[in-house]
């Protein structure tokens, strides 16, 4: 049994789906946010696997750039969480429903 690229892609799809589930089910903004990071990791795995299969280095470069973007997102996202925590003393997203309709 040889590991084919398809295995990696299926694994990535599974991780991405679990990430989606995490966003939908968790109340804690931080864990929701971790789930999004998980999704980005899954995408990166897809990029690198495809890159390998097709012999295209672009896939790896793309993964690098995604990491840069993800790092920025983390910094800003955590800052937002901290700011929310300052005004509400909680990171529970269910309490963030003052605006609706």
């Amino acid at each position, binding site marked *: 049994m040889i*590991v084919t*690229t398809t*295995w*990696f*892609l*299926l*694994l990535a*799809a*599974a*991780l*991405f*789906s679990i*990430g*989606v*589930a*995490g966003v*939908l*089910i*968790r*109340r*804690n903004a*931080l*864990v929701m946010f*971790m*789930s999004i*990071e*998980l999704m980005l*990791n899954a995408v*990166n*795995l897809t990029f*690198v*696997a*495809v*890159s*390998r299969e*097709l*012999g*295209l*280095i*672009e896939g*790896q*470069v793309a*993964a*690098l*750039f995604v*990491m*840069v973007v*993800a*790092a*920025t997102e*983390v*910094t*800003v996202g*955590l*800052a*937002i*969480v*901290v*700011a929310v925590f300052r005004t509400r003393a909680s*990171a529970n997203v269910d309490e963030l429903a003052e605006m609706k309709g």
Partner: protein
Amino acid sequence: MAETIVFIIFAAVALVGAVWMVMAPNPVHSAIGLLAVMFSIAVHYVILDAHLIAAVQVIIYAGAVMTLFVFVIMLIGVDTADAYGPQVPIQRAMTAAVAAGFFAAIALAGRVVWITGSAAFGRPNLSGTVEAVADELFGTWMVVFLSTIMLLTIAAMGTIALAYFHEDSTEDEASA
């Protein structure tokens, strides 16, 4: 064969870690689950001959990003109460259905042929060495590489703008 075993082990670790992250009531445990996923993915990168990406994955994600997460969890306190309490009764079932549906959609789409891209574009014996990636990164992608200056500036400014508090200025802005 060895590759296969390594893949299976770390795929399992990644999946368990991911599920653990989603299910663990304590955010710190979630963070540990995510850490496990990230390490396993780094291993997969090595299997895929993407050495540089593997290294960066460990340094940036497992190192910097996870540290930040844990730091913020500690800063705002560990809140374990009703970690994934449902808003509506069947929320858990619905979430599972959506996630399964998503996976099914991708799996169905890829059923037989996951990669249809023309191999003619590719270069043989691809290896993600530092040199190969650097050639590409500082050649074709140079402009894009430079453009990430924006992202870094934004990250710095965002942190200052949002999380750096002057108690004196808060009042009148909020009331403005």
